[in-house]
């Protein structure tokens, strides 16, 4: 490579991994939160199912 061009881009190539990591890091942080939310939503759905079951068995006992 032309030494002048090499000097021009001397700060570009070394910075590339940091720039890419910064952009990826931002999205990872946001997606991590979305993942936490999705797990919480799943657990809530499971709890709702368990409550529904508990209610049903309680009603059955009352009928008996």
């Amino acid at each position: 490579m032309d030494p002048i061009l090499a000097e021009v881009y001397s700060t570009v190539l070394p910075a590339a991994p940091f720039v890419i990591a910064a952009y990826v890091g931002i999205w990872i942080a946001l997606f991590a939160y979305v993942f936490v939310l999705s797990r919480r939503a799943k657990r809530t759905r499971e709890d709702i199912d368990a409550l529904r079951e508990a209610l049903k068995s309680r009603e059955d006992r009352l009928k008996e």
Partner: protein
Amino acid sequence: MAADSPVRASSGGSPARGGLIDRLTFAALVLGVLLTAIDVVWTFTLAPMVQGAELSEPAIIGGTQVTTKLLLSQKIFYLHVPVAVASFVVMFFAALWAVRFLMTKDRAFDLRSKTAMEVTLAFIVATMISGDLWTRFEWGVWWVWEPRLTTYFILMLLVIGYFILRNALDDPERRARFCAVFCVVAFIDAPISFMITRLVPSSIHPVVFRTDSGLPPMMLIPFLLGLFGMLFIAFALTRLALRINADAQEVEDLKERLEEQDAWKSRAAADAAFERLRAGAREAVAADEAPARADSPDASTTGAATGAAADGAGVSTTAHAEVAPADSESPDTHLDSSQEA
């Protein structure tokens, strides 16, 4: 402010489903992702690179004379700053809802404040990651105790502290009140962190928001796209998280009520069993008294026997009376509890 009034049950914590806000949330998410995607593409294709140190001699690249080195690392700015601004905006709403909670004692505002703090933490972590990578490349170190970095780090610690405080308190009323106050106090650091580069002129952190920034349109447009994109994403995330948190809290409340009902039911069964035991004991005492009366031969002995029996009964009665005050109120108490349930 209703300082001593109890916390009211949520009147609007669970957002309406399928309404206008729901559609707006989805639209905001799509728009936010779209704007941010355009920002990223624009940043790496059309936005010019910032010039750094001067070259030993000028060079011609693509017909343009270049006299300085080109700084790719500056492109972190196009997403790092919007994410940081979004964290400040969401935290402002967290503090606003905390104040609303302190004014109204409505649990819905506590839930909103907590949710906004969660989103704030996600955006703060994203800001710290991207900022730290820029610091590492430009300044050669992972961390500098520079005013902007320090105040923002304190902000992150305060937000983490908010959740530690939240998990440390069991009583919902105290937890909501303490956390609301903590949230408002923590928010004071946000404007300080935002303004610190102006307040401390020796700060080496760049001042981004200023009237004379002189950003050319090709750099300003992607920055604004990223800014609005991140604000839309923050809004959508907050609404989504609010929906999930409201549902989770409702389920927790229902579980607690069910457990309380079970506890009352088992206590009522135990009280009934105890009452049966007491009735059995009374019958046994009465059965003991009856033969004593029947065995007495004359009035005087009858009187003595009656006295002895009375003494015995008195002992029993006394013993019973000693027990009675302790347990006499429990059936009523449990009854009241059951009626309340």
